[in-house]
């Protein structure tokens, strides 16, 4: 019976306690043994109350807090706010689309040994968001978007409870997210509240400076040309916050595809409004935007590819775009540089091989 007890209780104990005991159970590989284990598991031994497993505050004040964050943006916020009180490990590195993240074995250990998991929520991480919600009894998990007033979230018409998860493109919303991180850390480790508050304050100040920067830069673009055309619908928050109309080629879902009519409609709009540039995203194949560009050119207008924007993840670590601030600055600089120059008419039978 000991085997089954240890297994059943291990989750409740928190994984650090479960580890040594379970290491004896390497024999679980045999299917018969596994079945036996399972039968035992299913039998009626009473496990502990599930909320008993959340780490005690006392324990955390004396060591660094192990933090796991899903996206790079969240990892950065946690590292900034936690300072040297935390060990942050990001799950999704640069260039990883959170919708399509493939977990590796290391994630199991990282998540099991974490004191807290910060995730975006709002289904950005797919089904995983749900799992994180349900995990709260086991490891402390925090959706950084939880603190945001639901009224400020974008909601596609017709579906209850489904929100656009790409909140980080509105810097003010991201400040809310950072506050959620700060509160979570403070709650876990009240002894060091002052550290988190000071770090959080400093981080939010930088973010609010960033917000002002984005606003300033955006105002350079004449309002009529403030149209952001990208491959997928990730920039809606950005558009709302900084006064851009946003048009995406395809929806949020990864299975969704564009139709020929969608491309034509977008191309017509670009040509009619003489929008000078469209943008590619790091995580979406360039060809999508190239197709749009071709369609526009065929309408006698030349639209440039204004550059590459970071949408779901940040740039290489060490580069300026490898930080949240750097990424947002890169995006707005790219957008402004491309849109503030007026568009040039193309020839219908243009050099770029328009029609034929």
């Amino acid at each position, binding site marked *: 019976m000991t085997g089954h007890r240890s297994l059943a209780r291990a989750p409740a104990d928190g994984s650090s306690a479960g580890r040594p005991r379970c290491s004896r159970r390497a024999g679980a590989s045999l299917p018969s043994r596994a079945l036996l284990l399972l039968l035992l*598991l299913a039998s009626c031994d009473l496990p502990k109350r599930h909320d008993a497993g959340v780490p005690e505050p006392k324990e955390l004040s004396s060591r660094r807090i192990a933090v796991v964050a899903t996206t790079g943006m969240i990892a950065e916020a946690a590292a900034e706010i936690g300072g040297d009180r935390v060990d942050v490990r990001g799950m999704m590195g640069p260039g990883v689309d959170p919708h399509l993240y493939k977990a590796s*074995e290391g994630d199991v250990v990282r998540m099991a040994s974490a004191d807290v998991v910060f995730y975006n929520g709002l289904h950005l991480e797919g*089904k995983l968001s749900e799992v994180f919600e349900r995990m709260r009894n086991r490891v402390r998990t925090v959706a950084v978007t939880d603190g945001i007033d639901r009224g400020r979230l974008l909601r596609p018409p017709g*579906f209850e*409870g489904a929100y656009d998860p790409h909140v980080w493109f509105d810097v003010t919303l991201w400040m809310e997210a950072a506050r959620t991180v700060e509160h979570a850390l403070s709650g876990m480790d009240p002894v060091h509240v002052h550290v988190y508050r000071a770090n959080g304050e400093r981080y939010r100040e930088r973010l609010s400076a960033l917000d002002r920067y984005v606003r300033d830069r955006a105002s350079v673009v004449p309002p009529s040309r403030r149209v952001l055309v990208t491959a997928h619908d990730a920039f809606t928050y950005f558009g709302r916050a900084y006064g851009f109309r946003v048009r995406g080629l395809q929806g949020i879902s990864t299975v*969704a595809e564009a139709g020929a009519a969608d491309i034509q409609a977008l191309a017509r709009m670009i040509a009619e409004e003489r929008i000078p540039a469209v943008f590619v995203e790091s995580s979406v194949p360039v060809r999508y935007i190239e197709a749009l560009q071709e369609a526009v050119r065929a309408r006698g207008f030349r639209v440039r590819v204004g550059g590459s924007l970071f949408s779901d993840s940040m740039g290489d670590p060490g580069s300026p775009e490898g930080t949240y601030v750097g990424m947002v600055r890169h995006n707005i600089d790219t957008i402004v540089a491309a849109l503030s120059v007026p568009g040039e008419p193309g020839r219908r039978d243009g050099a770029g091989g328009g029609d034929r």
Partner: protein
Amino acid sequence: MTAPQIEIQVIAVLVAVSCALPGTFLVLRRMAMMSDAISHSILLGIVLAFFVTRDLTSPFLVAAAALTGVLTVTLVELLNRTGLVREDAAIGLTFPALFSAGVILVARYAGSIHLDTDAVLLGELAFAPFNRLVVLGYDIGPRALYMMAGITALNILFVAVFFKELKLATFDPGLAAVLGFSPGVLHYASMALVSLTAVGSFDAVGSILVVALMIAPPATAYLLVDRLSTMLLLSALLGAAGAVSGYWVAHALDASIAGSMASMSGLLFAAAYLAAPGRGLIPITLRRSRQRLEFAQRMLLVHLYNHEGLPDAGRENRVEHLHEHLKWDRSFAERVVGAARDRRLVERRDSLLILTDAGREAARDAMVG
């Protein structure tokens, strides 16, 4: 090992066992690709159920996915029944249509929602231990564990109860019908079970591992054994072995667990393909060369016997001459002579070859045969 690590392996083993059973029948009945077809077509069910419930977390979505699996199987079967298209074409016609309908619905009515199969089925073994089942406030373990245990039990029960009928329906559907076993009903029951197992397992471990575990272990077992019962058992064992070894490969590489398990199942198959006793490529090649050698020895004996005592024996019965007469290359001739000498059928005096008594006996046998 930490608790989640153990849980992952237990879940994987359960998936392996529950996939091996229907998988064996799929492989034998040439419907292996059904598993992959289901993995695509369930999108339609998920989307339709979402339009009804408007809730991504509703368990109704998973039920709808399973139902779509059954629908897929039924449509394939209907197409088959017409006799106008073959089984593989029937599968290839069905799932793209269902999947495409799903995609169109998403694009038209839910393009701004993250709605796809991944949003409803977890499909990631690494996270399965964290998706807990909480009953009356008590955490009693990973959901997937219970779900897979239930599905495994159902599969084992089904196979155990209908073993005879399944066997008959698999190998001779016509005879089964004559004997009144109604292969149709059994077929639908087993296909419903395939769908249920597939969708349940997709949720626990992801579609690609399910396809791998439904096909690779039974195919491997098919190379190794001839009896249905041993094949079922061996499939389950091989699946479990692939799952557990795959886990540790993933651990070592810090890579995808499902991917590693699928790859290990593939490696097990490759090993059997190369080395299965009697059927593997290596044993066949070895046997070919051994038989060639054995056969050559007999030819040698007969040749020596025919020329023994004749005046030309001094010329004919030399190693060099074998090269010309029997068109053997020199090294092969040496090998044949060496092997025959080891068996004490031939002696060598200088370069002349002489039969021993045993060799003479063997030569006579060879000629009679």
